[in-house]
């Protein structure tokens, strides 16, 4: 059954965040990356997890993106069941949250953190067998999170896409995965400076080296 409905070439991005304080940033990451992909002629979709809303301060919440070469047919499959890319707007999410649930082989984990990947890897208890690399970037040092309630529940975000820390996190995703051209992302995000610095500074670590070290 699953194979019958598989959509080859469909990539899924799941961003985990802390409610209220980073909800916009999570939404911005998926919107920025998918809008960039749309500029490149891809079919895209971005949305927030409805059950996670209304978000509460610090509650783990998810935002999703889908990018494909073909028209997306699973547009109302409302959770990303097999993500290719997982990103965290906040580092503590590695602890006690099943962030890698369902990831595809070769998946990439991108974390907003000052800490090294080796340290964070210790906290991830499930799903690492399919994980190819961990990308770290100190997005908080490049841009602040914008806390706003506008844009939630399907409304228009009056504060602008990629104005805050999400621009940096999106850039790290692009650097590690090449899912879109970095130039495309820059056309979308407002905080281009943060995106550029993140693109430059993000560190990609092969999970194999972490497993061997651990």
């Amino acid at each position, binding site marked *: 059954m699953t194979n019958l409905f598989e959509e080859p070439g469909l990539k899924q991005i799941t961003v985990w965040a802390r*409610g*209220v304080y980073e909800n916009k940033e999570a939404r911005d990451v998926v919107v920025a990356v998918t809008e960039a992909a749309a500029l490149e002629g891809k079919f895209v979709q971005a949305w927030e997890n409805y059950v996670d*809303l*209304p978000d*509460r*301060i*610090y*509650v783990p919440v998810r935002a999703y993106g889908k990018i494909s070469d073909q028209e997306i047919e699973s547009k109302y499959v409302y959770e990303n069941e097999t993500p290719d890319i997982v990103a965290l707007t906040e580092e503590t999410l590695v602890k006690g949250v099943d962030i890698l649930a369902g990831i595809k082989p070769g998946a990439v984990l991108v974390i907003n953190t000052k800490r090294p990947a080796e340290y964070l890897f210790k906290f991830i208890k499930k799903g690492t067998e399919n994980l190819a690399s961990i990308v770290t970037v100190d997005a908080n040092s490049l841009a602040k999170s914008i*806390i706003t*309630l*506008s844009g*939630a*529940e399907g*409304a228009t975000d*009056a504060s602008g896409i990629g104005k805050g820390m999400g621009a940096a996190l999106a850039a790290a995703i692009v650097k590690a995965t090449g899912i879109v051209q970095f130039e495309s992302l820059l056309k979308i995000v407002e905080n281009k400076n943060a995106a550029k610095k993140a693109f430059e500074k993000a560190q990609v670590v092969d999970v194999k080296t972490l497993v061997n070290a651990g």
Partner: protein
Amino acid sequence: MLEEIKSIKKAPVEEYYVPGHRTCAGCGPALQYRLVAKAAGPNTIFLGPTGCMYVANTSYGCGPWAVPWIHAQITNGGAVASGIEAAYKAMIRKHKTDAEFPNIIVMAGDGGSADIGIQALSAAFYRGHNILFVAYDNESYANTGIQTSPTTPYGAWTTFSPAGPVIPEGKKLMPKDLPKIMAHGHPELKYLATASLSYPLDLMNKVRKGLNANGPAFLYIHAPCPKGWSFPADKTVEIGKLAVETGMFQLYELDGGEYKLTYKPRELKPVSEYIKYQGRFSHLQPEHIEKLQQFANQRLKEVGIEAVAAPAE
């Protein structure tokens, strides 16, 4: 008869609003809920009209109450409580239960009390049911992501009253004064008080007075909301104190028909001290802040405090 709690150290250790709920970190309404439950004790039935304290507390088919709890619609907390009370009265009288008459407490938000719920609330008090109706005021429809309610202050940004070039102050209307609406015109009312989570002992004792009143009692609790008001989650208690110290909220009770101030700030601070920590007011211009100051002065005057606050800078 529930006895007066003399100090925080003498407050009951037992929790009836236990850990494990999906309320915000630093949630004011959750804190007041815990204090109300603690003061009320085990022989209590809670009703939760729709709102944050329904949805956030019962997400995923579970809940944090060690006492019975039932959902009511956002419209009908007062009516459902009336039904429970009438049922217990009749069942006890007709020997259909050997239970003791319970404390019946409605925990309604400002929408479920001052707005869509006011009809059921007023009717329950008119009829004289022996219930305690708590209106926890976080000054917005918070569960749906912060929309204006009748108690949202003038000038506050919400997703239904955003500030913009055409409407620079955000919310243009002055808030309803629910405790005064309740105080005047409900002849069966036995007890009414306002409280704040920042004054926990006062709050718990007002809960007990209300439950001891043997008739309809109304408690209006100021419950700062870090999400909706945009202040850091650790500042909830401080914001609650500032509301009282600036006169934006007044602590009083109406017991036996007379207003009594239960806390009088030693020195009133200007309203600007209160609003500067809250993102929802960050767009306000001096003329808007002045209007808020006048609003606070007026409310203070109504409860017998002459405003001495300096005008906003």
